[in-house]
């Protein structure tokens, strides 16, 4: 490999690509060449660095200078000042939300956002070029596979995973080692390894980032799993909506074949393994394991009752072992560093780390990976930087459509599988959405239920009909037409659906409603009894008013109003006619004097 004196790492994750990182990379390459530095400085397109909020992100090594919100126009300055003269461009350096510090000498690990993190599954994301297998190899890539194939028996591999305490990161938290053991024990010459990259949670992108930033770690882990359970073929079921991830997987599979790390007789061990990609087609229920396997077979992705479990009869009716992307991403590290190392991280029953996609009303939107047992408060405040614009925190949602909303009182809950369930939510696959005082909890519950109603495969009645009934009730409530009995009805329906639905989708669909009813019952009651939405969100219950004291009569609102609802003469206080108001909120945005408010 060539030696460079400096590296310019540019994020090629989805977030940064969306804000123009491809053009930035092209510009760097062009300018570096122009300056005659192309033998000294290397531009690397990496996966997501995690701090997507600050994107597009550029890091210059060896100094580790962290530039944020970089624009194409800034590239010339970074090249001429930093790369040529060795002077970091101060005004582009990332500003730490917590301290308001803009310190060019601070390395990544010292920034508040990264300080509390521990990156195992994300270890290579933002560090290596995911389309270059040599970089993965330089970071111990495929060493775990080599160790497993040449120094460990199949039983030893399974035992190591068992002892590590690793649990499934796809949501269920089932002990991974046990699943491997069951499939190992299933007799049969043909078995399959499968990877769930369907990422159904509508507000999450952890698995996508692992695939985009470090695809080889998943391939390596699947090969290890194949060796352990006795399979020679693997399938990755990935969403078609993830084109970058799909492309990087294709590149990675091809390169691994060229290096003999997939294919026949890997490491001269006699073990052969191959991996195929299957594209999902946008159905949440296909994240459920039995539905996923039907979908790979090319059928409608409807769940089927278990048993038989996939470990006995899965894909193409053969024993199949399915794990989530992030689960796999941990495996090579466990094999390399041992189960003792892994199980020393985390809590008693939840070992290792968990990746969360932190989003919503939070300053540092992005991907974070923390040891199990880290409190919600640390994640939301120390790492996430709290709610923007000085707004008050109201709730954090975990577990996506299967999870719940937890209030401020529970912020000191240490995050692990069991604590989150005890608190009334669940781990889920890693979506973590923060909500502030402007978010209406009844509406959030309605949002998730609308999602599950939409995604119910319709095979069983409790899910198909029951969730629809619940949604109708919620729709009534947000329109101010609810009745107090509706709350009991919701709870009754929820109980029935949870008990009788066929698959996890239906069984967990009522959770967002139940958790908001538990922690934010006042808001439901305010909608029903007082016909008010405390968060001033629900349209039907809103009134827009102009404060005559503050109104200067500038007419900005009247000109913006699509309903012609605002009357008033120039330089005189204006007034909104509630009968004509469409509640679009455009007037508020236009008023420079803060005279308009929602009531």
């Amino acid at each position, binding site marked *: 490999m060539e030696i460079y004196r400096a590296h310019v790492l540019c994020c090629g994750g989805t977030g940064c690509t*969306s804000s123009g990182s491809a053009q930035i990379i092209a510009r760097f390459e062009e300018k570096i060449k122009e300056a005659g530095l192309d033998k000294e400085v290397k531009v690397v397109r990496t996966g997501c660095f995690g701090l997507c909020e600050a994107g597009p992100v550029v890091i210059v090594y060896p100094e580790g200078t962290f530039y944020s919100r970089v624009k194409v126009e800034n590239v010339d300055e970074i090249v001429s000042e930093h790369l040529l003269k060795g002077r970091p461009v101060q005004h582009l350096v990332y500003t730490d939300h917590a301290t308001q510090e803009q310190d060019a000498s601070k390395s990544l690990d010292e920034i508040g956002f990264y300080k509390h993190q521990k990156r195992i599954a994300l270890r290579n994301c933002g560090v290596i070029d995911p389309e270059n297998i040599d970089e993965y190899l330089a970071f111990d890539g495929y060493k775990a596979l080599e160790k497993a194939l040449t120094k460990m028996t199949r039983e030893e591999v399974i035992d190591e995973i068992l002892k590590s305490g690793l649990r499934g990161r796809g949501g269920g938290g089932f002990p991974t080692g046990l699943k491997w053991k069951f499939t190992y024990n299933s007799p049969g010459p043909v078995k399959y390894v499968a990877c769930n990259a369907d990422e159904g949670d*509508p507000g999450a992108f952890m698995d*996508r980032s692992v695939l985009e930033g470090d695809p080889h770690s998943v391939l390596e882990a699947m090969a290890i799993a194949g060796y352990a359970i006795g399979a020679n073929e693997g399938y990755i079921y990935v969403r078609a*909506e993830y084109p970058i991830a799909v492309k990087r997987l294709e590149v990675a599979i091809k390169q691994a074949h060229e290096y003999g790390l997939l294919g026949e007789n890997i490491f001269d061990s006699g073990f052969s393994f191959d991996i195929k990609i299957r594209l*999902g087609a*946008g159905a949440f229920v296909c994240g459920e394991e039995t539905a996923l396997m039907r979908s790979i077979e090319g059928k409608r992705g409807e769940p089927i009752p278990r048993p038989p479990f996939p470990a006995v009869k899965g894909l193409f009716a053969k024993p199949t072992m399915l794990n989530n992307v992030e689960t796999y991403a941990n495996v090579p590290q466990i094999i390399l560093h041992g189960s003792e190392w892994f199980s020393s991280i985390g809590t008693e029953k939840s070992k290792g780390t968990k990746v969360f996609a932190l989003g*919503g009303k939070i300053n540092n939107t992005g991907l974070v990976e923390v040891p199990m047992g880290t409190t919600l408060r640390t994640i939301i405040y120390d790492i996430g930087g709290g709610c923007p614009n000085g707004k008050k925190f109201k709730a954090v949602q975990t577990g996506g459509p299967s999870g719940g909303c937890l209030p401020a009182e529970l912020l000191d809950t240490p995050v692990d599988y069991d604590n989150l369930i005890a608190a009334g939510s669940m781990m889920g696959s890693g979506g973590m959405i*923060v909500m502030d005082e402007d978010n209406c909890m009844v509406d959030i519950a309605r949002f998730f239920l609308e999602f599950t109603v939409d995604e119910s495969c319709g095979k069983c009645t409790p899910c198909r009909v029951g969730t629809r009934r619940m949604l109708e009730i919620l729709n009534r409530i947000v329109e101010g037409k609810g009745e107090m009995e509706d709350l009991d009805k919701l709870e009754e329906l929820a109980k029935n659906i949870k008990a009788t639905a066929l698959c996890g989708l239906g069984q967990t669909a009522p959770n967002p409603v139940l958790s908001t009813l538990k922690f934010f019952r006042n808001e439901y009651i305010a909608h029903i009894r007082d016909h008010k939405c405390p968060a001033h969100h629900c349209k039907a219950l809103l009134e827009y008013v102009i404060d005559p004291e503050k109104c200067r009569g500038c007419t900005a609102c009247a000109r913006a109003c699509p309903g012609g609802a605002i009357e008033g003469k120039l330089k005189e206080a204006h007034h909104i006619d509630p009968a004509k108001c469409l509640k679009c909120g455009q007037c508020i945005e236009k008023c420079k004097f803060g005279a308009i408010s929602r009531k």
Partner: protein
Amino acid sequence: MPDKKEKFEQLAKVIEELKDQPGALMPVMQHAQNIFGCVSLDVQKAIAEGLGVTLSEVYGVATFYSQFKLKPAGKYVISVCLGTACYVKGSQKILDKLSEELKIPVGDTTDDGLFTLNATRCLGACGLAPVMTINEEVYGRLTPDAIPGILAKYTE
């Protein structure tokens, strides 16, 4: 642009290539959608014949997965993210504004065939929430106010 006949020839080639692998139906349909822009009834018939499966099986798969379109989409496909992170930051208002400006409900295409309006799930760019895409172009940190200006770029 290849004409219809060439497209069907392309499809026949894909079917020939994939038909022996297990679970070929979905990959064939995904290719078909790329070729035709949708899997309309005549395309479904060709797939059913090519793979030797019933039309009802193809239709069942086409209607089960939201990715498969039965009608061709507009020239510009607008996808507004209704993922949780975008939703809590007001993406519903963006969608409402688009629907109002284009005078079509979500899921529909304008009469002139220019725009299709869709809602999608997390686009992986939550840091830019609320987010929408128009074909490949990504627009982030949107406000309803910005919508008319953005649409104007495509109607000129």
